[in-house]
């Protein structure tokens, strides 16, 4: 789960991480009001979407062709200007390097006081899977994407792993501060910020945290100018972070994926036309792969899980069929714990109830497979049986009318 910048900054404030004063606006009038309340001659109107690269993005008309505004982050110097910029952004898609071609419709802007920037740094933390612990990352090249820095000049990234049991130690924070060339009061402020950031990372179940840029003002103060937080979905599911869960913005999520998750199904939307229903994440990925290799394109990833019941199978069918692009379905089940006979009965019941009008190819293997196949065969439904995965992929592509 990702947080918006304004939400991340709310959490930052609770940890004493310095951020500029700001307010959220959902209408142009609110944007004007927010500017007035900030009592700052210069403010910044920032689009709030779950994708990076907003400043260099483009706001389009709803047709995604006509440009409304270059840049999703704008400097304003009056309430009228704040209102004008907000009216150009709110309700329209912002396309950035990370947003996908359709962009994201901006539903909120964040108006923040401007600051006198002397230097821009990068500060972030992620989980290092290999080390099995989080790693703090800093660089003097603020404003640049860290992946880009890592690619061009990997030595420019200062890394510090820490043990979440002990917390980041003082010497580690000092090492990073000195490596960035900081001194005096700026160094002290940075030290405090790094301590707070690492504490927050562990306490708030972060998977990603980025302050890019972290700004040193002309007065030498340290400020988090941007804030990005990714939260571990499992911590949310386990109800470990109720305050962050309350910040979840469903509007930024794929509606089908969100609906699937509410039924306990793992679903990811793709752009193809062959619907897939599979048990197990690995087999579901492999099924997409084999469809592609056979010359088709998967419409989705769907893992119904090892213990799917009839109701879940039915809901999975409904989700797959709700996609108008889907021309045929491939059900690929390796019944281990999930017995083939139970699954076959679930499929038959679901197909009868849901009124499926597109071809279905089903590959069943595993526990009680003979009974399962017999159930499908004697159901009178038009379900094509496949001998194995490869056969199934071939047959489903043929059924969809897409010859190899």
């Amino acid at each position: 789960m990702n947080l918006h910048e304004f939400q991340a900054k709310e959490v930052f404030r609770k940890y004493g991480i310095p951020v500029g004063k700001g307010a959220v606006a959902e209408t142009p009038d609110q944007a004007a009001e927010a500017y007035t309340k900030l009592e700052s001659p210069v403010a910044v109107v920032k689009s709030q979407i779950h994708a990076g690269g907003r400043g260099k993005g483009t706001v389009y008309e709803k047709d995604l062709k006509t440009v409304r505004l270059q840049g999703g982050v704008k400097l304003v110097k009056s309430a009228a200007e704040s209102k004008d910029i907000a009216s150009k952004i709110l309700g329209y898609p912002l396309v950035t390097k990370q947003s996908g071609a359709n962009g994201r419709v901006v539903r909120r802007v964040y108006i923040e006081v401007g600051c006198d920037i002397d230097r821009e740094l990068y500060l972030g933390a992620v989980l290092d899977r290999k080390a099995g612990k989080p790693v703090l990352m800093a660089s003097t090249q603020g404003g640049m994407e860290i992946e880009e820095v890592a690619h061009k000049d990997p030595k420019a990234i200062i890394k510090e792993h820490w043990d979440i049991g002990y917390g980041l130690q003082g010497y580690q924070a000092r090492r990073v501060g000195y490596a960035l060339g900081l001194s005096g009061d700026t160094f002290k402020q940075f030290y405090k910020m790094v301590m707070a950031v690492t504490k927050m990372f562990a306490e708030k179940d972060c998977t990603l945290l980025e302050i890019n840029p972290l700004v040193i003002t002309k007065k030498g103060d340290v400020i988090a100018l941007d804030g990005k937080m990714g939260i571990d979905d499992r911590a949310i599911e386990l109800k470990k972070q109720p305050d962050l869960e309350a910040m979840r913005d469903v509007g930024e999520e794929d509606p089908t994926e969100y609906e699937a998750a509410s039924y306990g199904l793992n679903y990811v939307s793709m752009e193809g036309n062959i619907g897939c229903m599979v048990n197990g994440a690995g087999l579901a990925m492999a099924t997409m792969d084999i469809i592609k290799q056979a010359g088709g394109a998967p419409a989705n990833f769907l893992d119904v899980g090892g213990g799917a019941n009839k109701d879940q199978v039915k809901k999975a069918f409904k989700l797959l069929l709700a996609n108008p692009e889907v021309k045929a379905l491939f059900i690929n089940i390796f019944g281990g714990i999930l017995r083939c006979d139970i699954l076959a009965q679930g499929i038959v019941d679901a197909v009868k109830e849901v009124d499926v009008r597109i071809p279905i190819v089903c590959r069943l293997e595993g526990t009680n497979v003979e009974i399962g196949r017999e159930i499908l065969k004697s159901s009178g439904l038009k379900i094509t049986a496949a001998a194995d995965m490869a056969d199934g992929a071939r047959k489903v592509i043929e059924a969809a009318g897409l010859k190899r």
Partner: protein
Amino acid sequence: MSILVDKNTKIVVQGLTGEAGTVHGNGMLEYGSAVVAGVTPGKGGTQWESKKGVKVPVFNTVEQAVNATGCNASVIFVPGAAAADGVMEAAAAGIPLAVCITEGISIMDEVRLRAFLKEKNTRMIGPNCPGVITPGQTKLGIMPGYIHKPGDIGVVSRSGTLTYEAVWQLSALGYGQSSAVGIGGDPVQGTDFIDVLTLFNQDPGTRAVVMIGEIGGTMEEEAAAWIKANMKKPVVAFIGGQTAPEGKRMGHAGAIIQGGKGTAAAKYEALRAAGVTCVQSPADMGKTMKAVLEGKTA
């Protein structure tokens, strides 16, 4: 021969009296595994009875189970919120092998668990895995036992159902398995490919290995470097998620391409460069192993 577990493995099931523990406690006993104890806090002193009437003593703590039964491996079915605690308890009680089946442990708990286990002599398999099986001897986990056959092919995988798929293909072609290990689909795991490949490499009962990776992380690339330097036996590899889009978690918490890293293409490239025979189609894992063993491919 086998790795990690055999017929002498004495199993304690943590969470035996729960729903999953009961289903798979029965499954393990039916396969012939020596399930000698269960642990459920608050239910110590009671007995759990299998469908076929086998009675297993239940203890409040793993330590009590070890003292009373001499169990030397644990299978953990404790729900996500308490599973890391369960593994720590097994490790603290001196159990050398803890197989954590649980899916949905938070990443911070997994990070804590990894640090805790560094100080202990316990190997954790998982979390979020199907477990370990040595066909014909014992199974510690949730895999369907009957698809396996005793033999000399090692299987190691990040995915449960794909392990079954590989085992099924191998068995159908007459190739049994020495052991099959599901290392799990989470981002922070107790045992990685290199650990399992090292064991298979040393095991005289293993002739060749099927390795099943997936997108996300760099474990396959690290394994490739290790294989190049150390592996004496043929390895056949498949990587799931060749069509997965960037930035999307594909079911498993660890299966995600981030910042252009963790792609199937990069993993295949590393494995090929290490002399591993790579399989592009998941339907060809068994066939390819057969070809390799018959000397029909490079």
